């Protein structure tokens, strides 16, 4: 008994020591005030307490949301927005396994619905904030000399898609179904037989085509805006699939007010303008 007690004592000493070393070191001395005469005297209002907002967003939103995040931080002093960009299906799994997030922006309604079912997102709080559509991308020098959608079925063309679980991979297969009905002759099967890799998110597909390792990939129109050196083959509206992106605050968010504020910003005129700039179709 005595031994056990002393063991507990030692453990607690050990843990306290660990805890102490983990406390933040004092902030470095405040910056010396500049002596420029035009300097505005410091305002009396205290700085707001620093807050961190964590946004889990579909990989296709990487460029647009990075810009929106910077603008949001600038408009809200003390706020730092951090992002976790990945395939929506990966983010959904992370949230289900307890990853701390405040906002989830998905490239597909399916992942959002799964989170609503699991009560990670409240019912009826998610809103569609943009739509996107598909395009075929090719490396700048078009090594397989592809001219039209039918050429994707040519033998020996190296095609990279996202896996079926990634929203863009699912949409691409839906578009291939539409093309199959239109072109016939086993089009979809031939295209799928040309697939050399199923990537984990849309940006991986873009990277493989950018590097010239693949002859073609099916991604979002917005991805071409982010990688203007790529060539592309347009998919006509009747063969295309419209992706609707929902966004929602998470039930377990510890910054619920800020999460709502961020979503409002994304849906605001400024936010929607940034999305339009990066090739998405705004909903407003």
């Amino acid at each position, binding site marked *: 008994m005595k031994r056990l007690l002393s*063991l507990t004592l030692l453990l607690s000493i050990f843990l306290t020591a660990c805890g102490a070393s983990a406390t933040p070191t004092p902030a470095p001395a405040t910056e010396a005030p500049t002596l420029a005469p035009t300097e505005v005297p410091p305002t009396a209002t205290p700085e707001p307490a620093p807050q961190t907002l964590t946004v889990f967003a579909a990989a296709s939103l990487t460029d647009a949301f990075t810009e929106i995040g910077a603008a949001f931080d600038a408009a809200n002093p003390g706020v730092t927005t951090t992002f976790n960009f990945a395939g929506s299906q990966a983010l959904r799994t992370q949230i289900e396994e307890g990853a701390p997030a405040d906002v989830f922006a998905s490239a597909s309604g399916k992942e959002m619905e799964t989170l609503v079912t699991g009560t990670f997102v409240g019912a009826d709080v998610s809103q569609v904030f943009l739509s996107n559509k598909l395009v075929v991308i090719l490396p700048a020098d078009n090594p397989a000399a592809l001219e039209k959608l039918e050429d994707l079925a040519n033998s020996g063309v190296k095609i990279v898609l996202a*896996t079926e679980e990634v929203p863009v991979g699912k949409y691409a297969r839906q578009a291939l179904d539409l093309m199959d009905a239109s072109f016939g002759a086993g089009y979809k099967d031939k295209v799928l037989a040309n697939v050399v*890799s199923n*990537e984990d998110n849309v940006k991986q597909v873009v990277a493989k085509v950018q590097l010239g*390792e693949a002859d073609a990939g099916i991604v979002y129109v917005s991805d071409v805006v982010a990688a203007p050196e790529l060539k592309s083959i347009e998919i006509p509206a009747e063969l295309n699939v419209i992706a609707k992106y929902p966004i929602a605050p998470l039930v377990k968010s510890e910054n619920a007010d800020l999460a709502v504020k961020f979503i409002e910003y994304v849906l605001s005129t400024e936010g929607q303008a940034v999305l339009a700039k990066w090739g998405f179709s705004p909903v407003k």
Partner: protein
Amino acid sequence: MSKLREFSRQVFGEGTSKWIFLLPSLILLVFFALPLIALIYRSIAPDFFANALSKQAFQALKLSLVTSSITTLVTVVLGTPLAYLLARWKFRFKAWLELILDLPIVLPPSVAGLALLIAFGRRGLIGTFLSDIGFSIPFTTTAVIMAQLFVAAPLYIRSARIGFAHVDKQLEESAYVEGANQLQLFYEIMIPIAIRSLASGAILTWTRALGEFGATILFAGNLEGVTQTMPIAIYIGFERNLGVAMALSVVLILVSVFLLMITKQLEKEEE
């Protein structure tokens, strides 16, 4: 040190300083065992066998076993002479050569994957030439093996080099006195003496190749039956269906345990 001993004597009482060894060991053991137990515990579900015996799982396991075996074979064939040369010959820039060979051990596999892509990709340094003569490496099973070789072979070379270096110089000299040539010396003296270092190095390389993920997904991509090894199937399965990912993980754990048992048996027989 004596103060620490005194303190521990005061806290634990006389003769219980063994706790100084037991406590840290227990913490670390629990840390290792807990995730494995949790994984096995959570994977026990009615659909475990459906998941573990699915076509995808079987293909991935087969591909992993085949590629890692080829990697090990190539490593032993090419790596043994290299290790011997590094251990027994003297030449300039040897230290630099050893450094280059040790680098893949400490490099993140993602760096290895990127480097392989930049070298052997279709637009790569060598890849452009290979592509011109009709070879394209990325997204093929060859790419999987190359990724494993890059990451795992240095473990064998390192182990074999140390094994060869420990062979007594006098043995070498007396072999020459007896009229042995370089090859005889290598096969009849060096290999038998260093065999345990070679075997343990080969096992290290084999298990590392079996677990290779980062370089493979960058350089070889993900296609069922062609480049989707077990670790990649687990990663992709994590997003599709956690049950599948866990079932595959448990299968990989069982395979690894089985192989480790075989190697332990081999080591025992050698003694």
